[in-house]
């Protein structure tokens, strides 16, 4: 489905050469929910922008369903961390969700239907007429998620989407993502720096090294598909997995030279 092979990104500017991403290879299978987690400043956003076609990689390539990504492909939707700056404040919520659909060849009725459906599935059916800035942060991020859903992407890219909301809202939004993923069978690549979030959400967690980034380890999360904030987070297996990821991240921060051998082969 989504193939990232030998991805490398070097920023050149004002005499400095910064190697943000060194060599990344991983795949995301159709209908998978994969979390990328790494230490702060490890080039997660750079990586995601390369995957989304917003940045051109220095070397390597990204392909979606066998087609090389060399610009934002129509089959991808992005949810950014900064929801307040990602929604357009001059448009009402419904128009924000509808705007990307106007670029597609869809009838007005079909667009309406997609917008209504997407807003309903994030629990904001009555908010279509409000402006984004009239909503709370969590609700704004729901609108951004609805916009992505209405776009009917093959892959949904989420860049630390819940880093800027409070803890309770965050738990709700995590459950929302899990539910949408199960209901709609979409493929999600979710970037986060929060270890618990990565383990709680993902079917698979890819641990990244510190910058310049490589894949340090891939872990299959063998928790039951039915997860909830109370029980999943106290399950012994959850604790084991989060400890494993935590150790890897700590090792990555110390800059341990050789990444540990992956204990699970990547799927796909």
């Amino acid at each position, binding site marked *: 489905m989504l193939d990232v092979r030998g991805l490398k990104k070097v920023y050149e500017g004002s005499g400095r050469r910064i190697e943000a991403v060194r060599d990344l290879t991983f795949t995301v299978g159709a209908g998978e929910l994969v979390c990328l987690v790494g230490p702060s400043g490890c080039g997660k956003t750079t990586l995601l*922008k390369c995957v*989304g*076609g*917003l940045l051109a990689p220095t070397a390597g390539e990204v392909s979606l369903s066998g087609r090389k990504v060399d610009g*934002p492909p*129509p089959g*991808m*939707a*992005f949810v*950014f961390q*900064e929801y307040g*700056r*990602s929604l*357009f*404040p*001059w*448009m009402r919520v419904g128009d924000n969700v509808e*705007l*990307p659909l*106007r*670029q597609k060849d869809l009838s007005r009725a079909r667009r309406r239907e997609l917008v209504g459906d997407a807003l309903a599935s994030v629990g904001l059916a009555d908010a279509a007429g409000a*402006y984004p*800035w*009239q909503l709370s942060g969590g609700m704004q991020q729901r609108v951004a998620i609805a*916009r992505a859903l209405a*776009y009917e992407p093959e892959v949904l890219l989420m860049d630390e989407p819940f880093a800027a909301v409070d803890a309770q809202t965050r738990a709700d939004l995590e459950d929302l993502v899990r539910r949408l993923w199960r209901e709609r069978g979409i493929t999600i690549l979710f970037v986060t720096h929060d270890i618990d979030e990565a383990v709680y959400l993902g079917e698979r967690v890819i641990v990244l090294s510190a910058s310049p980034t490589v894949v340090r380890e891939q872990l299959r999360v063998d928790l039951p598909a039915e997860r909830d904030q109370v029980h999943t987070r106290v399950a012994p297996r959850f604790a084991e997995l989060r400890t494993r990821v935590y150790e890897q991240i700590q090792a990555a921060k110390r800059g341990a030279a050789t990444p540990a051998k992956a204990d699970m082969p990547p799927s796909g």
Partner: protein
Amino acid sequence: MRGPLLRLVFVLGLPVVLVAVWWAASAGSKDVYWPPLRTIVETFPDVWTGERWRGDVLPSVLRLAAGYALAAVAGVALGTLVGSRRRVRAVCEPVLEFLRAVPPPVLVPVIMLFAGIGDTMKIVVIATGCVWPVLLNTVEGVRAVDPVMAETARSYGITGAARLRRVVLPSASPQIFAGLRQALSIGIILMVISEMFAASNGLGFTIVQFQRSFAIPGMWTGILLLGLLGFVLSVLFQLVERRVLGWYHGLRDASRRS
């Protein structure tokens, strides 16, 4: 109930006081140049008859509207072009700053040379004066589009005309309106000045005529009318702005509260 009434008192209070002071201070004036306000007010309906409105006020306002509209369209169009291309901006910016620094009234004699002394000259004068604040503010506004918004638009394939219409221009609209507001007051000044140089009708022309024929109260009524015209236009502008930029004021209030 007290709210609106109090607001009305605040809004009207100072103007009423000022007019009253003027009225009282000028009441017994024998000075030819400073006639009593009472005389000016009494002269007003005699001077500004239906014919004057049609023959002088209307042509002035129409020329202002034409010049202003021309400047607005040209300013936003050029500003968008300059603002969205870094190369074009680098080339144009020093020239624009220079042109803006030239006081528009000095252009009147120059423009008279090629545009004559008719309506065209006056419209061109108004447009060349008004275009700079609109242009420069549009450049700034277009340049300052939030990078996250720009990336969002790009990731959803919103490009070309749709991007311009639904992302870039709305995002720049608060700045564009700031430019349009400055341009409005410049436009009124240039409307009057262009008519003082060479004209056969218009508000500026009439005021100069009164002054030259020592019809001093008449001259004062013209000045009052100009003030009122400026006031009405500014109120109209605010109404339009409040409609178009409703989202912006709401957004600002929302972020101030949090």
